[in-house]
């Protein structure tokens, strides 16, 4: 998994590539929390995420909570069909802001 950061005005975009599972989730968590500390408007580009496991979902939920507590916003964009299915089946579609 690789993560690239882009700044765009007030927002910060993280472009994630690869799979997010129990192996890669710790790195994903570090990057997400660090990025969340730098902006009030975090955009996470999932265009190149092929799979996300429960460990990855846990990171998204944690990041979402931290952003909300700091009056910030986290938005997922370009979510693939397979990953969207995971969000639907777990109820994450009701929790996350998915564009």
């Amino acid at each position, binding site marked *: 998994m690789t993560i690239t950061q882009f700044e765009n005005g007030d927002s910060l975009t993280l472009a994630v590539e690869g799979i997010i599972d129990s192996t890669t989730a710790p790195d994903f968590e570090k990057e997400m929390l660090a990025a969340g500390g730098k902006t009030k408007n975090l955009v996470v580009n999932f265009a190149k995420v092929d799979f996300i496991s*429960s460990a990855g*979902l*846990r990171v998204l*939920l944690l990041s979402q909570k931290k952003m909300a507590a700091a009056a910030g916003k986290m938005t997922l964009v370009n979510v693939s069909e*397979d990953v969207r*299915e*995971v969000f*639907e*089946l*777990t*109820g994450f579609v009701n929790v996350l802001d998915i564009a």
Partner: protein
Amino acid sequence: MLVCPKCGAAIGENDVYCAGCGTMLHRVCSHCHALMPLMAKFCSNCGTKFEEAKENHVFSIPLPIEKNGFMIDGRDQQKYKMVKIGNQIWLAENFRFKSTDSFVYGNNEDMAEKYGRLYTWDSARIVAPPGWHLATRRDFNELGRFCKSLGQGMVGTMLKSKDAEWKTNGIFGPGTPGSDAVGFAAMPYGVRTSAGVFSYLGSFAYFWCADEENMGRAYYRHLSYFTGAYQECSSKKECAFSVRLVKNQ
């Protein structure tokens, strides 16, 4: 002349049951392989127009036996507990007839007895034995209304079994056990995703509805380990979920 494949008695193409042995008469759709009543002019599953029934089109399906609160599927002799909830009669167990495009979690056949099988929507639509049907949105709505009328807490909690698996902690926090207040006994059997991955055993229960949302998606009911919610959602038809049957009225 059409004859009953079970007893050989003469039958008419508009007969529902054989007058000689009482077996229910069906034909198989040549396109989607759904079982339809012999008298059907079109397949209600895929819309294929049927030609006039000929002898090799007729199949007999053994009727299920209902006795002492149980339904026995005449096709494989599997026995299911029935439960009356309000004005409806439900199977109090997940269905487990082995049909095309049905699966057991992790491909472990031992799971079927306790949890039933997971069916794609197309398979779920046609798996019920005569006299029973895959629960519809209307059925699930009626079930929800009846549970609410009892005033015993959240509907999802009332439908969940008392099984310890519902207590599993997860991403959203600690699990909350069900009260099984109406005998529905929902089990957290998880899903086989459209990509073929088995997931969420012990966390979520998914039950197909017979109603489709559009060409590629259909509705289902969802119960979660961490909440008493009773949600209606939709998913790709290729996902495989549990099936609950309701007795025809």
